[in-house]
C-alpha cells in the first residue's frame, strides 16, 4: 500500500533519477565512440574536466574550418559586372552566351541601379572591385572625378543601344494619342493655367486636351528610386514642360525652379507609384482598362498581345521608331569598362566585349534585339566596335 502510494506521489523523482543515470551512461558511450583518440591526446594537455575538452575540440574545429575557408580565397576568374537594372536583362543574356560558347566562366551580373553601380565601379582598381558597370545614362562629371580620385583613370565607354519608355494601356481600351505637353499637364504637380502657375487642377484626360477621351487620369509608373522614372521625367515631362513660354521665362531666371516645375510629379493619387516591378504594372493594366502604365519597351514587346503602346507626338513606340529616334521618349544605354582590369585582374573582358557587340547579339535578328534592346544603327555600331577592339578610353 505504501509503495503504491509512494510511486503515485513521487513519479517525478523516480523518472528524474532514471533520466540522470541514463544521461550519464549515454554520454560515456558517446565519448568513447567519437572522441576517444582525441581525448587521449588532450588529457595530457589539459587535465581538466570532460566538458572543457569537448568545448576545446569544438572551438578547434571551428577554427580549422575558418582557416580552410580563408585559404580557399583565390584570384578571380569570373568577370564581375554591376549596374543598371534596365541593362541587366541584356547584360545577363550576353554573359550567359559568353559562358556557354567560350571556356571562360560565366560572368556574375549584379543589378544595383546605375548610380549604385558607378559608385562601386569607381571605388578602386583590383580584385575586389567590379570590372564593368552598366548604366542607363551617361557617366556624370562628378563620377569621373570620383573614379580618378580612386585611381580608376582609363574608362572605356560602350554605348549599346536605346531603350524606349512607353505609355501603354490595355488592349480592351482605346489607344491613346498623346502630345508631350498633355503628359506634363496631366502628371506635373504644378501646371501653367492662363499664364499663372497653379496646383494641377486636371482630373480627366479631356480636360488636358479635348481630343483625349473623357477618362480619369490614372497612371501607374515607377517610384523615384528608379532610373526609368528619372528618364521619364527628363524626356517626357520636361519635353512637354518646355513647350510653354511661361516656363521658358522661368528657366532663364531660375534654373532650379525650372527643374522642380518640370520634373515634379503630382502626389494627389493620379500618378500611382507601382514599385520597381514592371510585370506588376502590366498585370494591373490588364485588370484596369482605364489605367495607363509607364515602363520600358521590353515589357511592351513581351506583352503586346494584351497591352498596346500609346502614340506620343505622332509616333508609336515600335522597334523601328525608337531606332530611328522618331519616338521621342527614348534614352541611350551604356556600359563602362575598367581598362586597368583587362588581362590583369580577370581574363576574358575583351572577349566579353566582342560577344556583346557581335552581330549574333546586336544584329537585326540578334538575341539582344529579341530581348527588347534597340541596337545602334550600323554606322554608330561600327564606331563603338572600333572603340571596343582598340580599347580606346574616354577623354
Amino acid at each position, binding site marked *: 500500500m505504501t509503495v503504491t502510494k509512494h510511486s503515485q506521489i513521487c513519479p517525478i523523482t523516480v523518472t*528524474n*533519477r532514471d533520466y540522470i543515470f541514463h544521461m550519464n551512461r549515454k554520454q560515456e558511450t558517446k565519448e568513447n565512440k567519437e572522441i576517444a583518440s582525441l581525448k587521449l591526446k588532450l588529457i595530457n594537455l589539459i587535465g581538466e574536466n570532460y566538458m572543457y575538452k569537448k568545448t576545446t575540440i569544438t572551438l578547434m574545429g571551428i577554427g580549422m574550418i575558418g582557416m580552410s575557408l580563408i585559404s580557399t580565397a583565390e584570384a578571380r576568374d569570373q568577370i564581375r559586372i554591376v549596374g543598371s*537594372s534596365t541593362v541587366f*536583362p541584356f547584360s545577363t543574356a550576353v554573359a*550567359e552566351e559568353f559562358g556557354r560558347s567560350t571556356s571562360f566562366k560565366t560572368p556574375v551580373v*549584379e543589378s544595383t541601379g546605375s548610380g549604385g553601380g558607378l559608385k562601386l565601379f569607381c571605388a578602386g582598381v583590383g580584385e575586389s572591385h567590379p570590372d564593368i558597370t552598366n548604366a542607363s545614362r551617361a557617366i556624370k562629371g562628378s563620377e569621373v572625378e570620383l573614379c580618378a580620385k580612386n585611381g580608376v583613370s582609363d574608362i572605356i565607354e560602350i554605348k549599346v543601344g536605346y531603350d524606349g519608355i512607353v505609355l501603354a494601356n490595355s488592349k480592351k481600351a482605346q489607344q491613346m494619342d498623346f502630345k508631350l505637353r498633355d503628359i506634363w499637364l496631366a502628371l506635373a504637380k504644378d501646371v501653367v493655367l492662363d499664364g499663372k502657375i497653379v496646383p494641377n487642377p486636371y482630373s480627366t484626360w479631356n480636360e488636358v486636351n479635348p481630343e483625349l477621351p473623357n477618362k480619369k487620369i490614372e497612371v501607374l509608373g515607377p517610384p523615384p528610386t528608379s532610373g526609368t522614372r528619372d528618364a521619364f521625367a527628363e524626356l517626357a515631362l520636361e519635353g512637354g514642360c518646355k513647350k510653354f513660354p511661361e516656363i521658358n521665362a522661368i528657366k532663364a531666371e531660375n534654373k532650379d525652379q525650372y527643374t522642380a516645375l518640370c520634373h515634379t510629379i503630382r502626389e494627389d493619387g493620379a500618378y500611382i507609384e507601382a514599385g520597381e516591378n514592371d510585370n506588376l504594372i502590366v498585370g494591373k493594366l490588364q485588370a484596369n482598362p482605364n489605367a495607363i502604365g509607364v515602363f520600358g519597351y521590353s515589357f511592351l514587346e513581351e506583352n*503586346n498581345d494584351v497591352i498596346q503602346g500609346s502614340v506620343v507626338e505622332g509616333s508609336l513606340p515600335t522597334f523601328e521608331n525608337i531606332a530611328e529616334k522618331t519616338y521621342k521618349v527614348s534614352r541611350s544605354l551604356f556600359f563602362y569598362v575598367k581598362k586597368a582590369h583587362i588581362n590583369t585582374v580577370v581574363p576574358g573582358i575583351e572577349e566579353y566585349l566582342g560577344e556583346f557587340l557581335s552581330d549574333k547579339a546586336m544584329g537585326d535578328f540578334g538575341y539582344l534585339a529579341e530581348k527588347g534592346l534597340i541596337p545602334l544603327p550600323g554606322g554608330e555600331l561600327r564606331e563603338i566596335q572600333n572603340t571596343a577592339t582598340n580599347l580606346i578610353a574616354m577623354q
Partner: protein
Amino acid sequence: MTDIQETDIVSRRVNWHSKSQKDRLESRYRKEKIFKALAVSSLSIAIVALLVVLVSILTTGISGFKETRIELDIYLDRDIVGEVPNLDAAGLKDHYATININSLLIKSLQKKFPEVSSRRDVFSLLKLFSVGAQSDIRDTLIADPDLVGKTHTISLLSSSIVDMFIKGKILRDVEENNRKISDQQIAWLDQFELEGKISQNFNWTFFTNGDSREPELAGVRSATVGSLLTLFVTFIISFPIGVGTAIYLEEFAPKNRYTDLIEININNLAAVPSIIFGLLGLAIFIGFVGLPRSAPLVGGLTLALMTLPTIIITARAAIKAVPPSIKEAAIGLGASHMQMVFHHVLPLSMPGILTGSIIGMAQALGETAPLLMIGMVAFIVDTPGGIMEASTALPVQVYLWADSPERGFLEKTSAAIMVLLLFLIVMNGLAIWMRQKFEKKW
C-alpha cells in the same frame, strides 16, 4: 468582526432573478458572443488570405514543373561530327563543344520541311527549339558514340514561346502581330502535334540548371546550393554563439544593471529590420575585413547576426523551462555548477533550443533584403563550389525572375516560390518533430 461581515453579506444579498440582473447577464453573454464571432471571423479572413496566396501560386506555378519537348529525327552526319576520338565522357564533352551542332539541327529540320528554304524561314523554324536543344543532341552523342553516321530520334527541348503556346498561355486566336509566335510557326507545331511528336515531361532541367535568361533553361540549382551554403555558415556561427550567450546569461551571469541592459538590447535587436543587418554586413565584412562580394560566407555571417537574437531568446526560454528540481538534484549529488549545466540543463533544453534555431534558420532562408546590400542579388549561372564563390539564394532567385520581362518566367517564379515553401515546410516540420520526439514533460 465575523458577525458584522456575515450580516453585511446577507444585507447585500442580490436577487438574481430581478430584471436588472437578467439584463446584465444577457449583456455579458452578448459580449462574449461578439468576441467569439470577431475571433472566428479574423481567423477565417486569415485562412482565406492564405488559401488565396497558396492557390494562386499553385495554379500559376504547377505548369512550371513541366517542359515541352519535340521529337525530331536527327541525322548525325559524319561529315559534321567527324570521327569520334577515344575519350571519356568529360573529354568527349570538350570535343563536341567545338562542333557546330546547330547545323545538324538545321539540316534535319530542312529534311523534315523541304519547302522551307529562305534564311528567314529557317531562322523562325529554329526558334521553335530552345538553345538547350543543342546540348540534348550533344548528350546523345556522348552517351552513345556509335550513333554517328546514323539517324536517331532525339527529344529536343522546345523554346519558351512554344512551351507557353502548348500550355495555352499564348492564345491562337490573338492577331498574329500581337503574339510572339507566328501563324507559320503554329502550322509547323500543328504538324508535329499531328504526328504525336510533342510531349510534356517533368521539368528536371528546373532542378539541374542554374539561372538562365531563357525561361525554359532556368533552374534553381545554383540558388538552392547557395542558400544551403549560406545557411550552413549562418548555423555554424550563430548556434554556438547564441547558445553560449543564452547559457551564460541564464545560468552564470550576475543579475545587475549591465546584464539587464544587455538583455533589453538583445530583445530590441530581434526587432531590427533586416536591411540594417545588410548594411552592417557590407560595412564590416566587405568594407573592413575585405571578404569578396556575393560570397555565401558574407551572406551567412550577415544572416547569423540577424538570427542571433532569435536563437538567444528561444534558448534562454528553453533553459529557463528546465525544472529547478533537476538542477537541485544534480547539485545535491555533488555536481559542480558547470557539470549541472552541461550534463543536465543543456541536454534537457536541447529540443527547445533546436526548435528555436530551426525557426531562426527558416527566417534566414527567406530573407532577401540583407543579401541585396552584399551583392547576392546577382545573375549567377554556375553552381557555387564553396563559400567564397559568388552565389545567390532562393528568395533572390524569386525576386529576379519576378522582375524579368519574358512571359515564361511567370510560372518559373511561382515554381521557385513552391520550392522555397517546401524547404520552409520541411524545416518547420523538422522543428515540430524534434520537439515532440525529444521533449520531456514534467
